[in-house]
Structure formats: structure tokens, C-alpha cells
């Protein structure tokens, strides 16, 4: 009996220990223990454990690269333990991985055990680095599904890495989504989507790739290419792939930045070197951009001091002078001083011709019209005589750009220069409006025409506008205004009929009829033709607009004049009484009639038989009457003369503050006073207006400023406060008037409303002061409330000071003049001669 007795079963602790060792990866010790256990207890269980240990050992050897040893051990175990071959299926594939033929050969056997097949396919999935290898593997029968799938993958892989493919080319129906080549299918599709820039789909497909498959090695490089990042940590072949596929735009970017810096520094040699480097980098990494870069370099170098040969070197050759080139050249030039505007215009014309030739847009298209309009706008700023001279030079002397602009590259200089028609704004506007007629274009043309010395020019434009856009009201209204100014009333009425045909409800149109009828009636009355005025007066009396406000009163005054001219004393007397009753007294009636008569051109009103009017007593309010009549005159465009002898009484009544006046009437009174330089009267009217408060403060501050004569600082304060209020009320018309006045005061162009502003405390101080300050011709020294220096102006306007535009502080300079030469006088208004008193005191209105 042997000392070592065979045990029928493996001890449980031995099995557990072996399995523990296998789990820890200690296959060598596990094999030794398993061999001992099998030796002591040779039974199926211990054999199973031993073969398992051997399988682990073989796999371990294989993973350490000990392929021959692993194969030898495998062969030994395979032979010695045939009953346990199933346990060796997977490791069999691992052993055979070094040779694809050996690995897949068993797949030819249709009776191959499923676990064997699974093991081989798993090994294939982990090891196949080129589907062509499997496609060309002669070990497998030609129509084996795996071989067919591999062939399809090979073809698709070659296709997607060489060009764009459609989805149908990567359908790959031969490749099963669950088979060993599934990752390859995902990879091929991912590459196809990558090149089509469908990055979302590409990423989804990358996520479907098994991490154990060799295909997963391309995931990092594809992600880096998608995100256009410099790939870090890639292996050499992957890095090379990234460089080949992605190129290197970083080098070009750096080269362009260096060139930009060089041009800013204006050092010739550096520019040339940097330019050449940039062109080289561009040709390497972005060859499609090279032509464009050449153009841009040539353009950027135009204003530099480089010689022609240096410029050519920097741009590595002459630039292509196509539409793009001319467009960029024109835009660069028009950013320069206004004196370059004609040259810019010429370049625009060059662009226009090239753009049509290159089919950027068609001839007579809206785009071409935009170009014409832009060219015309450029020439607007050029004085007429300068433009004439240039046109003459163009037609007589200039043949090419070498004489016109020698800074252009030689290739551009040789371009045929356009005809000088592009230097005629009227032609440019005409073409623009002909091609694409619209109100904005005509408006622009009209604005230019208004600046021309020939008066007819503007009217011709308006006529063209009217004919081209017959539904547009604006040209008709402008023509009407022009006809009125020329006193061509018949034409004006014809135009008015046309305007009413377009839009009879337009407020301007409605005011125009009233205005024209009044002007017509007054003209006829002035010509002593009351019978001709009669139809106009009747038409006026029937006009709805003439019934608004105090207009009927004015018409009644005209009626009085008509009756007086016709010698109808009784009718005239009735009219007068009615007027006096409506206006609250003889004073107002007489004032209005005198104003109406003067508006008709009748100078000797008294000869008409205007009743003698006594000067009102102290208890009879003159201010309200005069203010009301001034407002009527303002409304009807007739100047009302305020008798000087009433001034003191009016001022007293206005200053008393014991009655309320209408703001419009006070404004009209102030304007009428200012027209005759009656500053004290105007001052009093503005005082009463400021006392009203509310929305009218802006206008009264503006009027107050105008009463202040040479009191520069206080005048400025009022204008600034008025501008601030007008801005808040969005009263653009008032703002424009304020700016105009400020420009006149300062003698500078380019003043804009931002230069006139006041913050809230300043505004309150100005208002508080002006509401209580008494009239004075002297300067209020020390009352400067708003600093006018450029810095404070700019700070108020919320922008950085622009000393270049504002220039010296003129207001400050004027203040110094004030203190040096006497205060507050300013330009004295012309002295008014007081009329000599007549022997007979006829009335207030003997002039």
C-alpha cells in the first residue's frame, strides 16, 4: 500500500486556495498547488481545476510575450487532458493570436463549439488592426461571412480616409453590429462623419467603439481633431496622423500676428521678412488663403514708406487686382482724410466694374445702386471747385493710376482708370435713383442739390422724384414750399391739389392750403385788388382749419382790410366792433388789423381808416391783449409790431405775476420782441413763461438765452439747461435751434447737442436763478453754474473729452474778454431811431 493514499475528493480549502491565487493573478503558484492536488486526488474536479490553472498560466505567459512557452504548455495540456479541452478554448485563441491564420482556422468548422467560436471572435475583436488582413486571409473560405465583412470594411475604410463618401457607402450591411467587427463598422462611419464635419454623429459613433478593440486607439486623435486642439500625449503615429489630417494653423496664426506687429512698427526689413514668412506658412497650411493674404498684405503696405520692390517681396509677388481688392482699397482709403474722397470714389468705381464682371451682382441691380449712392455721398463733402478741378484733370491728364495714386501696387497702377463720370454726384445720384428708386435715395440727392449754387438744381431733383414716385408726398410738399418762397402761388396751388390727391389728411397738407389761401388773399389786398381777394377769403372762411384757434379773428382782420380798401366804411366798422368784442378791446383789434395790413404790404395803415385808439389806461391789461395778438400773428406768419409806448406797461403787467398767461402767447410775444431787439420786453415775457413751469421751461430758457445779449456765461447756462430739457422731452426741433444758436455764438462748426448738457443739480440752479433774476444788461459775474471746459462737457455727455474736435474753450476765452474789456455788452443791437413826434397825435399806429 503506498504511503500516499488517493483521496476521492479535492479538499475544499485546497480548491478555494487555488481559486484565490488565480483571482490574484498568481497563476504559477496556483498551477503548482493544482498539480499537487490532482496528484493526490485525480478526479474530474481536480482535473478541471488544474486545467483552469494551466489556462491562466498560459494566458499569463502570453501577456508577458512568452509566446513559444505558452504555446508549448498549451499543446502539452491539450494533449494530456482531452476531456477538459473546453476550458482551453479561449486561451487557445490567445495562443493563436500571433498568427491570424491559426486563430481563425477553426472557424471553418461548422461544428465548432460555441464557446470556442466565441473565444476566437473575442480574440479577433481584440487583435485585428487592419480589416484587409482578415479579408485576405486564405485560411478562411472565400465566402465566409467574416471574410466578406472584412472585405467590405477594407473598401469602406480606404474610401472614407481618401475622400468624402455618402452614407450609402458606409452602410456595411455585411458587418454585424454584435459581431467581432462591430467596432470597425463604428470607426469607419465615425471617420466618414468627421470629414463631413458632422461632429455630433462622429462622437456618438466613437462612443460605440469597444474600449478593448484596437479601433479605440483612434478615439483620442479624432477627438483632438474635432476640437481643433493641439493633441497632447498622443503616440508618435497618432501625432503624425493628427498633423497630416489637421494641418497646423497655429504656425500661420503666429506668422500673421508677427506681420501685424511689424507693420505697426513700420520697420521695412522686419515687414519684408515677416511678410515672406507669413506667405510661406500660408502656402503650407492654408494654400486656399494665399491669394487673399497677398492682397491684404499689399493693401496694408500701401500707406507705408516701403519701396515697391520691398512691398513685392513682403507679399511674395503682385496681388490679384479683382473686385475684392478694389473693394478693400476703397474702404481703406475712405477711412482717411476727406481730401481722399475723390480717390476713394474712383476706387469704388473700379470695384463696381470688377464686381459686375465677376458677377458679384448684376448691372442695374439694387447692389449697384447702393454703390452709386455711396459714391455720391462720398463726394458730398468735397467742395464744388475742388471737384471741378479734379474732373478736369481726370479727363485731360490722368491715364492710369501711376499718375493718380503712385502708392498703389504696380499691378493696380496698370489698371485702366474709369471715365470721370464717377466724379459727378448728379450722375451718381441719378443712376442710383434710376436703378432703385426709393425715398431715401431721392432725399439724399435732394440734400446735395440744396447745397448747389443753382437754385433750380434742387427743384429739378424734386420734379424727378415726384415723377418717379408719384405716390410720395414729400417731393410735392417740398416743391410747394419752393413755389411759395418764389411767390408762385398758382403753381403752389396746383401742387397743393396734387398733394391733397395723395394724402388730404396729412397735417402739413392741410396747413398748406390755409397758408396759400392766406398768402393769396394778402397779396391781392396788397395789390389793392380786394375783388380778387374775395374768392380766397370765402374759401378761407369755409376751410375747417381756418376755424381753429384764433384764425377766424385773423380772417376778420383781413375782411376789415378788404372792406376798407373797397371803401365800405360801415362794413369795416362792424368788423372792427366785432373784432374788438372778440379780442377784448380796441387795442388788440387795432394791433391785429395793423399787423394784417402790414402783412399785405400796406404800410400806411391809418390811411385805411383804422379808428383812432387811445393808449390803454393802467387798469386795462395790455399784456394779455398784445400777447394774444402776437400768437395770432405767429400762427398766421404775420409779424406784429408792438408799439414802444406800450412796452413799459406790458413789462409791468408781466412782472406783476398776478395773472396767468398762455404759454403760446408768451412765446409769441417774446419772439416778436426779439425780432425787434426789444430784449427787456422779451425778458419779461420769458420770466412770465418760466413762472408757469412744466413742459414749457425748455422753450422759455431758450428764449431767455436770446435776451441775454453779450452775457456769454449766463447765455450758455440757459442754452445748456434748455438743451437738457429738450433732450428729455425729445424735442428735436428745439434742440436743433439751440445748437444752431450755440454754433453762431461760438463761431465753430461741429457743435452738437452733447456739448450742451446739464446734470440735475445744475438744471435746478439755472431754473431757480432765471425765475427770479431781474433784467440787467450787465454780466452776472460769479454766477457761473455750469463749467464749460471740454472735460466737463464731455463728462456730462458721458464720453471721453475730444479736444481735437472741440478745440479751445471759446466760451472761457470770451469770458476773459468780458473781464478785460467790460462786461456783458456783447454785440450791441443797432440803435433804433425813435420817430419824431407828429404835431397831431393821431393814434398809436401812425408809422
Amino acid at each position, binding site marked *: 500500500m503506498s504511503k500516499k493514499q488517493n483521496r476521492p475528493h479535492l479538499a475544499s480549502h485546497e480548491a478555494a486556495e487555488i481559486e484565490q491565487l488565480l483571482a490574484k493573478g498568481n497563476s504559477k503558484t496556483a498551477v503548482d498547488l493544482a498539480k499537487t492536488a490532482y496528484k493526490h486526488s485525480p478526479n474530474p474536479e481536480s482535473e478541471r481545476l488544474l486545467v483552469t490553472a494551466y489556462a491562466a498560466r498560459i494566458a499569463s505567459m502570453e501577456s508577458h510575450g512568452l509566446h513559444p512557452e505558452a504555446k508549448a504548455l498549451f499543446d502539452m495540456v491539450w494533449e494530456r487532458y482531452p476531456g477538459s479541452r473546453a476550458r482551453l478554448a479561449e486561451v487557445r485563441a490567445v495562443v493563436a493570436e500571433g498568427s491570424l491564420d491559426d486563430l481563425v482556422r477553426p472557424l471553418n468548422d461548422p461544428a465548432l463549439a460555441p464557446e470556442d467560436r466565441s473565444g476566437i471572435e473575442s480574440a479577433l475583436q481584440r487583435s485585428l488592426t487592419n480589416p484587409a488582413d482578415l479579408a485576405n486571409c486564405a485560411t478562411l473560405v472565400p465566402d465566409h461571412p467574416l471574410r466578406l465583412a472584412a472585405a467590405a470594411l477594407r473598401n469602406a*475604410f480606404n474610401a472614407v480616409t481618401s475622400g468624402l463618401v455618402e452614407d450609402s457607402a458606409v452602410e456595411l450591411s455585411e458587418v454585424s453590429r454584435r459581431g467581432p467587427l462591430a467596432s470597425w463598422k463604428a470607426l469607419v462611419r465615425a471617420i466618414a462623419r468627421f470629414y463631413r464635419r458632422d461632429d455630433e454623429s462622429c462622437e456618438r459613433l466613437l462612443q460605440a467603439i469597444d474600449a478593448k478593440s484596437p479601433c479605440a486607439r483612434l478615439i483620442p486623435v479624432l477627438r483632438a481633431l474635432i476640437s481643433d486642439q493641439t493633441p497632447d500625449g498622443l503616440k508618435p503615429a497618432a501625432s503624425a496622423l493628427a498633423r497630416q489630417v489637421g494641418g497646423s494653423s497655429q504656425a500661420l496664426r503666429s506668422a500673421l500676428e508677427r506681420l501685424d506687429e511689424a507693420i505697426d512698427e513700420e520697420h521695412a526689413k522686419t515687414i519684408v521678412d515677416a511678410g515672406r514668412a507669413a506667405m510661406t506658412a500660408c502656402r503650407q497650411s492654408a494654400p486656399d488663403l494665399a491669394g487673399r493674404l497677398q492682397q491684404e498684405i499689399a493693401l496694408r503696405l500701401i500707406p507705408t514708406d516701403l519701396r515697391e520692390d520691398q512691398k513685392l517681396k513682403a507679399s511674395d509677388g503682385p496681388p490679384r487686382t479683382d473686385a475684392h481688392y478694389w473693394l478693400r482699397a476703397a474702404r481703406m482709403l475712405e477711412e482717411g482724410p476727406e481730401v481722399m474722397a475723390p480717390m476713394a470714389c474712383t476706387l469704388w468705381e473700379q470695384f463696381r466694374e470688377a464686381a459686375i464682371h465677376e458677377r*458679384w451682382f448684376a448691372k442695374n441691380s439694387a447692389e449697384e445702386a447702393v454703390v452709386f449712392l455711396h459714391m455720391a455721398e462720398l463726394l458730398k463733402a468735397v467742395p464744388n471747385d475742388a471737384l471741378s478741378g479734379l474732373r478736369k484733370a481726370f479727363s485731360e491728364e490722368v491715364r492710369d493710376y501711376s499718375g493718380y495714386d503712385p502708392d498703389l501696387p504696380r499691378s493696380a497702377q496698370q489698371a485702366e482708370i474709369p471715365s470721370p463720370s464717377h466724379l459727378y454726384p448728379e450722375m451718381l445720384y441719378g443712376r442710383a435713383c434710376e436703378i432703385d428708386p426709393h425715398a431715401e435715395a431721392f432725399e439724399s440727392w435732394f440734400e446735395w442739390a440744396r447745397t448747389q449754387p443753382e437754385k433750380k438744381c434742387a427743384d429739378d431733383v424734386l420734379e424727378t422724384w415726384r415723377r418717379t414716385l408719384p405716390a410720395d408726398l414729400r417731393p410735392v410738399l417740398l416743391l410747394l414750399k419752393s413755389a411759395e418762397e418764389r411767390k408762385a402761388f398758382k403753381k403752389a396751388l396746383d401742387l397743393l391739389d396734387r398733394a391733397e390727391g395723395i394724402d388730404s389728411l396729412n397735417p402739413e397738407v392741410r396747413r398748406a392750403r390755409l397758408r396759400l389761401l392766406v398768402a393769396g388773399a394778402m397779396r391781392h389786398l396788397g395789390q389793392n385788388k380786394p375783388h380778387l381777394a374775395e374768392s380766397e377769403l370765402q374759401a378761407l372762411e369755409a376751410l375747417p382749419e381756418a376755424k381753429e384757434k384764433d384764425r377766424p379773428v385773423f380772417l376778420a382782420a383781413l375782411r376789415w382790410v378788404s372792406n376798407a380798401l373797397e371803401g365800405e366804411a360801415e362794413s369795416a366798422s362792424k368788423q372792427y366792433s366785432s373784432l374788438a368784442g372778440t379780442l377784448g378791446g380796441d387795442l388788440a383789434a387795432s394791433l391785429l388789423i395793423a399787423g394784417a395790413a402790414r402783412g399785405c404790404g400796406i404800410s400806411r395803415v391809418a390811411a385805411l381808416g383804422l379808428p383812432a385808439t387811445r393808449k390803454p389806461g393802467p387798469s386795462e391789461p395790455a399784456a394779455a391783449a398784445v400777447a394774444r395778438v402776437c400768437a395770432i400773428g405767429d400762427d398766421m406768419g404775420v409779424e406784429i409790431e408792438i408799439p414802444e409806448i406800450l412796452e413799459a406797461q406790458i413789462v409791468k403787467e408781466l412782472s406783476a405775476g398776478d395773472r396767468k398767461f398762455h404759454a403760446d402767447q408768451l412765446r409769441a410775444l417774446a419772439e416778436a420782441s426779439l425780432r425787434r431787439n426789444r430784449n427787456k420786453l422779451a425778458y419779461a415775457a420769458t420770466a412770465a413763461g418760466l413762472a408757469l413751469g412744466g413742459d414749457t421751461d425748455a422753450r422759455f430758457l431758450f428764449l431767455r438765452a436770446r435776451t441775454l445779449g453779450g452775457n456769454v456765461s449766463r447765455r450758455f447756462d440757459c442754452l445748456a439747461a434748455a438743451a437738457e430739457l429738450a433732450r428729455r422731452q425729445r424735442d428735436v426741433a428745439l434742440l436743433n435751434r439751440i445748437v444752431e444758436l450755440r454754433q453762431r455764438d461760438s463761431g465753430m462748426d461741429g457743435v452738437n447737442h452733447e456739448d450742451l448738457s446739464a446734470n440735475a443739480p445744475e438744471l435746478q440752479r439755472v431754473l431757480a436763478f432765471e425765475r427770479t433774476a431781474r433784467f440787467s444788461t450787465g454780466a452776472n459775474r460769479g454766477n457761473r453754474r455750469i463749467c464749460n471746459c471740454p472735460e466737463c462737457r464731455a463728462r456730462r455727455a458721458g464720453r471721453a473729452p475730444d479736444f481735437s474736435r472741440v478745440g479751445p474753450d471759446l466760451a472761457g476765452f470770451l469770458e476773459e474778454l468780458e473781464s478785460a474789456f467790460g462786461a456783458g455788452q456783447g454785440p450791441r443791437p443797432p440803435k433804433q431811431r425813435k420817430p419824431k413826434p407828429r404835431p397831431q397825435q393821431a393814434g398809436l399806429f401812425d408809422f
Partner: protein
Amino acid sequence: MKKRQTSLTSQDDPRQILGIGPHANDEEIRFAYLKKVAEHPPDRSPTEFERVRDAYEVLRDPRRRARHMLFSGEAAPPLVSLLDGRPADRRFAGPGAWLAALREK
């Protein structure tokens, strides 16, 4: 009613947004717009939809289209701006380079 501000910046090219060439006519512009709107409907891609709509607003009006073509962008931008918005290269390298990376363990 307040005018909505455009979502486009001075760097955006409306033609690129709609995916059309420089010579597309009105019909092609409209077709491209409708296609883009179908791809980026307002409920699913509101930001992209706004860009598409603003791009169409610029291109549908010939005057606005012309002004954008002629006057958008700076007159003398830095040369490096030529690369702005330019998509990274994706050049075809053939199967060899890809296989080399695959073989690399």
C-alpha cells in the same frame, strides 16, 4: 413696438449661416432659409434659429444685402483676422496614416 436686435455680429457671414454661395439668387436664398429653419426649429434650437432668421433678414432685402456685402467688418482689420471663423483643416491622408496609428500599441 421695439425693434428686435440682431443676433449677428460683424464677424458673422449671413451666407455662411445659410450655407449658400456668393451668387445665390433670391429663390436660392429663400430655399436655404427654409431648409435651415427645418434643421433648427425655434423650439429645439432657439439660438441657431435666431441666427438663421437674422441672416435671412439681411439677405432677403437687396439693399441690406448690398450694404452688408460692401460695408460689414473693419476697413483695415488685422491680418490675423483672416483666420477668424475659418474651420480647422480636415485633410484626407489616405488609409496608411490611420492604419499606422491603429497598429501602435
